[in-house]
């Protein structure tokens, strides 16, 4: 194979190396290099991705994607779990932006409110309750950082390869079977009455599922209360 995708492979490997350097290994040495390498890897990867629409759309998408990915890397590699949680929140905001970008307005709001607003705050509560200092050894030493980074590389590489094959000219999706036209999209997913349609679907087709989800929430609430409420003997 002559057309070996050199740059994506390089980007993935570089990203893995950078990740290994950035993960807490009991020492701060190489973290800066790692961050630099990670930036390079992300840049390389971004350069290989197709453009989306005009320059404005394109810039918005890439900025959002960069925020998301960078926040994600930071959330995983920071040693202090409070910072991790805050970076994670930023990652969620980036995701919400991506949702908004693709027209899923309700999801964007839901992610922001439920995830970043409620779940993450709960995490922070627990963190504050459990670990006020953030200097524990287990935060400073990862478990098999190199193996973990290698695993990540393999998984991301495999996924990217599948995606790449799917969208390649000889791939499964070519010639874009079932691709919606903008009129169809405007009539359905991108309809101005987005929330109304979503709600209609939710309480029509998915009525039973939403009821089940509600019961599940109740059960989880009770279960959590029971678990946490048990007296320590």
């Amino acid at each position, binding site marked *: 194979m002559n057309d070996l995708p050199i740059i994506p492979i390089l980007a993935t490997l570089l990203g893995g190396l950078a990740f290994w350097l950035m*993960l807490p290994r009991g020492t701060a040495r190489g973290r800066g290099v790692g961050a630099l390498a990670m930036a390079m890897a992300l840049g390389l*990867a971004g350069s290989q991705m*197709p*453009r989306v629409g005009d320059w404005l759309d394109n810039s918005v998408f890439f900025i959002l994607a960069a925020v998301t*990915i960078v926040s*994600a890397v930071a*959330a*995983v590699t920071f040693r202090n779990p409070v910072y*991790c949680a805050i970076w*994670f929140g930023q*990652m969620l905001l980036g995701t919400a932006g*991506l949702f908004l970008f*693709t*027209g*899923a307005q309700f*999801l964007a709001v*839901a992610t922001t409110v*439920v*995830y970043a607003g409620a*779940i993450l705050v709960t*995490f922070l509560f*627990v963190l504050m*309750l*459990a*670990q006020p*200092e953030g*200097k*524990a050894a*287990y*935060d*400073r*030493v*990862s478990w*098999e950082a190199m*193996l*973990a980074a290698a*695993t*990540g590389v393999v998984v*991301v590489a495999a*996924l*990217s390869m599948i*995606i790449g094959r799917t*969208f390649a000219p000889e791939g499964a*999706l070519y010639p874009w079977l079932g691709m*919606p036209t903008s009129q*169809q*999209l405007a009539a359905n*997913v991108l309809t101005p009455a987005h929330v109304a*349609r*979503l709600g209609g679907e*939710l309480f029509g087709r*998915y009525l039973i599922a939403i009821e089940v*989800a509600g019961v*599940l*929430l109740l059960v989880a609430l009770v*279960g*959590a209360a029971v*678990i*946490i409420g*048990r007296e320590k003997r």
Partner: protein
Amino acid sequence: MPYEVALLNNYLLVGAALFGIGLVGFVSRRNLIVMFLSAEMMLQGVSLSLVAWGRFHNDFGGQLLVLFIIAVAACEAAVALAMITMLFRRSGKLDAAHWQTLREANQPRFHEEPLPEEFGDQPLPWPRLTPAGIQPDVPREKIDYRPKV
């Protein structure tokens, strides 16, 4: 590449990256809460792909599935945090490796390597000032230790 296809492609790639990053975090980090955050991150990667595919198929199913994912994630977070709190009450740590006592009998322990000395971990010295008023009766170790944050 048409707009919709490019969008799908990019979203899938971003989702895959989130998934991979979360995976690495889950596998390598030992703090239970950070592990949990990483797992949520993987979930976000999947959500992104779902929304993108939903748009590509011009269908609300993807978004609705993500909505359910959020609901389930909320349940999961409630129960998991309760359990983490219990574990913390028992061990005083958020260390996942602490619970390797649940391993099969007669298996060797995961050995924690001795922590290398790190520059930033040295206790910060207190600024030396002239005494003002009566010296408060503070234990010695409290005086010596000053958190960074």
